[in-house]
């Protein structure tokens, strides 16, 4: 990583470690092309974060085949994908649950009762912070300030904001998820 010297020359591709490479539908490929079109041609590396979100949307997480795809698509080395993927907290280098419950823990939420919300979720889901339920349905995380301080406490489910929470509201929300009746409002494009 040294931006001074490597202006993201297209690099020859070493055989990526993962043997398999993800394959996406024509629509997804078009979406990816649209992202790449935003940046100068020789700067395709710029699209790494948007593309990672698409891979996550399609595959749940940055699995080896998805990583191999990214390396190939962006003409990067596999290690370049790794160094970026492990830096950002929203990128999953391990599988996460279908419903990723992310409770904000930072100051404004904390003083408005974030801990109660977290504990409530934990008890209800039967998992601790940082864990995923055995059926792979729920993951519970504590995250840093999400810009909902005026509507604290809050949690983010997938990309959806749920604010001004009370244990009752959390119950209703999680029950909806358990019954697979929850529909995600915000989608990655």
């Amino acid at each position, binding site marked *: 990583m040294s931006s001074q010297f490597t202006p993201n020359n297209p690099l020859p591709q070493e055989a990526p470690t993962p043997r398999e490479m993800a394959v996406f539908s024509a629509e997804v490929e078009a979406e990816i092309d649209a992202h790449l079109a935003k940046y100068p041609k020789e700067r395709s590396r710029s699209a790494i974060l948007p593309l990672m979100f698409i891979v996550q949307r399609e595959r749940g997480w940055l699995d080896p085949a998805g990583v191999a795809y990214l390396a190939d698509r962006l003409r990067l080395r596999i290690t370049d994908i*790794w160094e970026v993927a492990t830096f950002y907290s929203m990128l999953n280098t391990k599988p996460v649950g279908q419903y990723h419950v992310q409770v904000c823990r930072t100051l404004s939420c904390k003083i408005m009762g974030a801990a109660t919300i977290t504990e409530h979720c934990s008890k209800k889901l039967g998992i601790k912070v940082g864990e995923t339920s055995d059926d792979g349905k729920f993951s519970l995380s504590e995250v840093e300030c999400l810009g909902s301080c005026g509507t604290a406490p809050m949690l983010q489910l997938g990309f959806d904001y749920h604010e001004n929470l009370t244990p009752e509201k959390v119950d209703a929300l999680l029950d909806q998820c358990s019954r697979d009746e929850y529909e995600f409002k915000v989608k990655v494009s």
Partner: protein
Amino acid sequence: MSQELIKVTVNGQDYQVAKGARLIDVCREKGHSVPSFCYYADLALQASCRMCLVRIEKMPKLQTSCTITCTDGMIATTESAEIEKARRGMVEFLLANHPLDCPVCDRGGECELQEMVFDWGGLEERFTEKKNAYPEKFLSPIVANDPQRCILCKRCTRVCDEWMGEDAIEAGGRGANTVIGTYDGWLNCSQCGNCIEVCPTGTLLDATYRHQARPWELSQTVTTCTFCSDGCQMSLGSRAGEVMRSVARDRYVDGINGEFLCIKGRFAHPFINHEERIKTPMIRYKKGGRLVPATWDEALHYVTEGFEAARSAYGGEGFGVVGSSRITNEANHALLRFAREVIKTDNYTATDAFSLAPFFKNLGAPIATHKDIRNAKTIVLIGGEPEELQPLTGRYIRQAVRNGGAQLVIFNNTPIRLKEQAAQFIHINAGTEDAVVFALSTGGDADLAARKLGVEASALADARKLIEETAGDIVLLFGGELSGAAQAVLAQLPAAFGAREGRRFLFHPLPIYNNSVGVQDIGLMNGRLDAGAMLAACGESVHALYVAGSFLPQHLAGREDALAKLDFLVVQELFETETTKHADVVLPAASFAETDGTFTNNAGQVQRVRQSIPPVHQSRPDWMITDMIARARGTEFDYQLSASRVFQDIARNVAAYEGMRYPALKDESNPVQAKHAIASGADVTSQMQTLRRKVESLIETNDKAQATPPVGHELFKPGTLTKRTPQFLLLDAGNPKPPTVLISPLYQLTVDPNLRRATVNATGD
């Protein structure tokens, strides 16, 4: 060039320094010590360790001296209570999560962090919390990793990127969880080990040496690497007659390569004390019989008798002497004298991949040192693949482009990795390298060349234009693909381009072996027959052969039985080879680690080889063996058992080495370049005609390799010497990731030499 000077004041003392100088360098040069971990000359600035803080007048806050460019009138302070507190604070931070168990750390005794703490003393341990811990593990068969010792100076990731262009190792994670590593914890790269070398702590470790010895038990011998023609300087660490490791760490050695070495230089040394070294002289009393160990006296007696018989039967003409581009100048010089004075024959040569004789004969410009390459404005590479065959040259080409802004033009049949750095990569057909020279020289025909090369004529015109317009140094590098005629024409290219203000041509040939240039200089390649012809003549005109080293596979190809046709064959070698198979007498030669001498590198620098351990078993230095045989046959070279005297003999007889003496070569930081005669204006008309015919006769194909070969495709090839390091075999087998990274892959995987595939050890032992 006149350098503008400016005034800088450090700790109250005024200095005149070059404009643009870096403050940390100025401070250190002038004797004001400034600590640092992340700063490393000629690597991207990092400014992350925050050790080099100084106070600069008129600037708020302390400043990192590694990032400050001196300006006129700058006033800096490097010592004060405030600065000392800041630096101590930084070391305290670095030590917080760093284990304090130096006695069990493999870098103990040569760790920069440890030294800093010891130097300063008086460090109170206030960190009483639990340390973040990670398990020790292997990143490859060669690189071991102890993540908790990492101080994140990122020298490793920078050398991997900036020197090697590999980017194989990177920082992952964030904040206090940042670690150095790779995607799946396994390192697939050229395994140069430079990351290990530049690591200031015990984070990246030599897995072939780890826990074998402590640095203070080792005697360090500065010497020249025995593999490729770059001639890196290294320090062999030995204990009780055993070479334990090879490093280029700047506390021991400071050569043309800095702390750089490639996988061979750094890890292929286990051949030296290898079990399979030839231990004693051996005699095959009967053709087809077994080699039987003998004493030196018996062997010398047998050799003299054999030589005597051959000479009286066939005369000097029936006799051949073969040296090697892998042994010292001293050894080759002794062989040349042996051929001329003892056998009185012109049948002498050396086993090298190709001859540079036509090039040196017509040399039209000086030879570029590696430093010249680093500072060049334009670099033209015809054929070759320096990164695999001359890795140091590869590194400097890359740095010249990335840090120095040089323009690189590559003509190659294969999209080699260096292409990433090229301003112009001209993808040519296989076997048409000669046409490149033809196109660049006057009287050439660019359109014809373009057709044969399979490129646009405009690409050639662009390359020519770049050369024409360069202000500064142009370095022309070429590999073994060029024919003799092309070498000669290329050597006169500067004359073809004519003189231009500020432009200077330099050459940098890319021969394969550590002493390819030396053996050329000594004159051993100027005999009547070359290595191939010598083999072809075996049993015809040549009946007895004295060989130091071995024939290369390409020489023997198609002539596998040539040596069997000889009446008498004497070979001095380290290991049994195809060549020793037919030998009547095999003599144990000392390796480069066991002898004194010199190698001449591809920059024409004559560098010292120094004895690190006594010759193993009963081996002797090559020149000494030759001297012994000569003496047994009644000729006195008067070497008096001294390599230095052999070299004096060389200096008297080889014009380019005139006046050289060992004492003058002792400083590896200032290598001495041989004075190769410049034949400006040599007439190469006839070679040009040959070249034209050659180019015309090339078939117009479309034969270009499309894939970039993987890193290590040449470096990992098991050779006579490298295959003695078991780790090389795993790498050659594709460097498979073992079931666990906590144990050395050597104990988990075995290589089937026939299948070249690694398998998990069934027993796991």
